[in-house]
């Protein structure tokens, strides 16, 4: 790994975040539209991404969320009224409301601790010093959410991608730095075997997303699109079996005349999932495409997709 490449990317991301400050005039944080599907009603992800989250326009404040099996364990890193750094611990269980089953919600009390060990000091047990506030979180996509402190102003947050190449074609409208998936991934699938069946089918296929291809709109008649071919390798032969795409129509990009639509199409012979013989198209809200994970569910077949970037995290 090239040390300078890492640092350069990180610094560039930080500069881009600072460059977004004028947007503060309109909203706090990146409101990433949920396009292509009704995210409020269709559950396409099981949990938000784990990692550092924040509003890229407000550097210096971070929420580290780590989700395991619907349990969220997090830290809020901010400041006391004096300006001193402070952190608050919170734990919550992610839940779905009946009237908006596509959204994941969490409610938690922030806990402040004091009098623990300082650096180089003898061990000391910290004491709970207070409950300074209440945090509520709502996620409509795996990599986009909103939080509020004590019911106050909504702040949009996204995960910090410190070391991922970005596909920036739709950055202005979507306000989410789309990680470029080029590289090795394993795609996994889960589905019931049929109506009333108890058997759960699982399957996987590994392969590589190729480099990004860009098609520019031409006078509004052709889509403005980006896509990546997904290919598996077997016996030394490379077999393209699908593609990940984001497409919009319009006079260049943006503005567009219809919403951006992203998806993952797969077509290949599969003994366990014969649906793939005829092709399956997984809808992908833009911010379900993460740097280390891509998740979705095909509403037609009911097949759940969870893709892991190999060796990434």
């Amino acid at each position, binding site marked *: 790994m090239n040390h300078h490449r890492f640092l350069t990317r990180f610094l560039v991301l930080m500069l881009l975040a600072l460059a977004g400050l004028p947007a503060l005039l309109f909203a706090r944080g990146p409101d990433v539209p949920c396009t292509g599907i009704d995210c409020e009603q269709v559950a396409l992800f099981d949990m938000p991404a784990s990692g550092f989250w924040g509003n890229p326009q407000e550097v210096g404040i971070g929420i580290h969320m780590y989700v395991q099996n619907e349990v969220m364990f997090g*830290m809020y890193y901010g400041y006391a009224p004096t300006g001193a750094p402070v*952190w608050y611990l919170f734990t919550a269980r992610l839940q779905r409301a009946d009237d908006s089953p596509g959204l994941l919600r969490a409610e938690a009390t922030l806990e402040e601790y*004091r009098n623990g060990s300082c650096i180089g000091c003898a061990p000391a047990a910290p004491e709970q010093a207070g409950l300074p506030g209440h945090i509520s979180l709502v996620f409509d996509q795996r990599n986009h959410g909103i939080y509020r402190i004590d019911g106050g102003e909504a702040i949009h947050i996204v995960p910090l991608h410190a070391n991922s190449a970005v596909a920036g074609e739709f950055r202005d409208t979507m306000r989410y730095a789309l990680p470029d998936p080029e590289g090795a991934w394993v795609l996994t699938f889960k589905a019931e075997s049929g109506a009333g069946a108890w058997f759960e089918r*699982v399957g996987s296929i590994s392969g590589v997303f190729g480099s990004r291809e860009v098609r520019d709109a031409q006078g509004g008649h052709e889509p403005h699109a980006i896509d990546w071919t997904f290919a598996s390798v077997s016996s030394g032969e490379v077999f393209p079996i699908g593609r990940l795409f984001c497409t919009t129509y319009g006079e260049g990009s943006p503005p567009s005349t219809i919403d951006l639509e992203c998806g993952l199409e797969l077509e290949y012979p599969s003994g366990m999932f014969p649906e793939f013989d005829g092709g399956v198209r997984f809808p992908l809200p833009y911010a379900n495409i993460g740097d280390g994970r891509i998740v979705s569910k095909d509403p037609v077949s009911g097949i759940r997709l969870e893709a892991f970037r190999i060796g*990434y995290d």
Partner: protein
Amino acid sequence: MKWIFGLLLALWLAPLWLTPVLAQGGPGYPCQGCVEDRPLFTMPSSALWYALERPGTGLSITVQDGFLVGMYYGFTPTGAPLWYLFTGPLEQPEDAPSKMRVRANLQRVENGPCLGCGYQAPDFLPSPGEATLEFDQANHATFAIDDGEPLTMLPFIAGVGYARLLPSYTDYNFPDLNGTWVAVQEVPQADGNWRYDSHIGELRSSSKLDRYANWNLLESWTPLDQYVILGLYCAFNRGIPGVDDPHSHDVPDCWLSDIVDLPDRPLGERLYFPVPYANIGASRISAVHPQTGVRLTMYRLEYD
């Protein structure tokens, strides 16, 4: 619900009264099965980590393709909360090639907005010191600031139960592994590229004793056609054919056993991957085959 959070908080506060016990002769966290020339894991766990010897102190860690973003959380000498940011690439140090290390200046940030207040840009102040974070296993590390005493760091396990399966040999808490996992093989090719293979199934614990633990990945084509290819076990010398157990006869080793298609070799060769105890995590199990360089990583589905 509440018992889970209570358990988490108890764990968070537990190290203080555990420390004397562990210091009096617990086995610690030996890197059993590790080799000298390379780490046997691809990436350390992204998680909230805690300092075993310093309750309420720890690290938030996110790793992305070899780059680590960390936040140290702890307390000032007056007992006030404190955090420092640090970032850097994970490197394989020349003086300790079996480990992965990040060395970076801590960033001290102050005077940002208070909770629920309007935004104001914080000040980035002079660095208070250099952090060194060193992983010998995917779920075990030491952390030091400047020349200070290294602290033992371990990730929280929040989503499943855990147990000290081999209490005479390691203090490591093995997470409950039962669930759906996909195993990914990264196989180096003669031309310098990698080939990727995978298989998926239900990991099930088949036996647990004080000196032995075993899990099998149950795969299936139909409900009536189930089979096992991949196994994970921790045991004393198993007499693996053709494999010299590099470790003591007095300590159990953990192994992943899987069938791999190697280039220029007969199809379907079974390889035995040594797995240091703390490479067995709640959402990842990672191993490297020292002789062939094949990497085997297991990812848990629908977990994180």
